[in-house]
């Protein structure tokens, strides 16, 4: 490992802890939009953490996975929001 490994893997671990905090809100959340907000936060943190892991191991494939994950999670969020919004306007 190079000397930059610890610099990038420790913030990645902290982001993992923040993901677990968001998971608490996703389990507790009283309404459905609360859970969607928690899921969206977890998606953003996963993308940021995956980029940090890619920099720590100096592998580009983690960053490629992060790009695809960002776009697909965005589509998932839009889909659930559209479903929550209901059918056509009366």
């Amino acid at each position: 490992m190079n000397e930059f490994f610890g610099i990038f893997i420790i913030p990645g671990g902290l982001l993992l802890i923040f993901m677990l905090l968001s998971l608490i809100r996703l389990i507790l959340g009283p309404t459905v939009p609360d859970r969607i907000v928690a899921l969206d936060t977890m998606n953003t943190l996963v993308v940021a953490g995956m980029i940090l892991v890619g920099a720590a191991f100096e592998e580009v494939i983690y960053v490629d996975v992060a790009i695809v994950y960002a776009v697909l999670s965005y589509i998932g969020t839009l889909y659930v929001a559209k479903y929550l919004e209901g059918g056509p306007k009366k």
Partner: protein
Amino acid sequence: MRILLTVLYIFLGIGVIFNGLGSIGLLRFPDVYTRLHATTKNTTFGSIFTCLAVIIFSFYQLHMTKDSKFLVLALHTFLALVCLIITNPTGAHAIARAAHRSGVMPKQAVIDQLKEAKLQ
């Protein structure tokens, strides 16, 4: 080297602190709109700074080792950052709109002036 380490520590520190504030706000705020307000802005800002740290690190390694892998790492990190910046506010807007249309009111709210304005 010392300047690079200082810049990396500052950028990663800013990123981690703002991401943590977003998660704590998600736990502590009372209703869905304030939670959305806390998480979206804080996690976007923090992710911008962690990605900038990775880009600076990649250009330093490219300058030192002349390995084209680091140029690819920097460009793909920039692409992921652009995806994140475009998709994150749009998703938050969609969530807020869906929450309002599905009838979730802010805590302690009595009247809904947006719905009254739309009915007219």
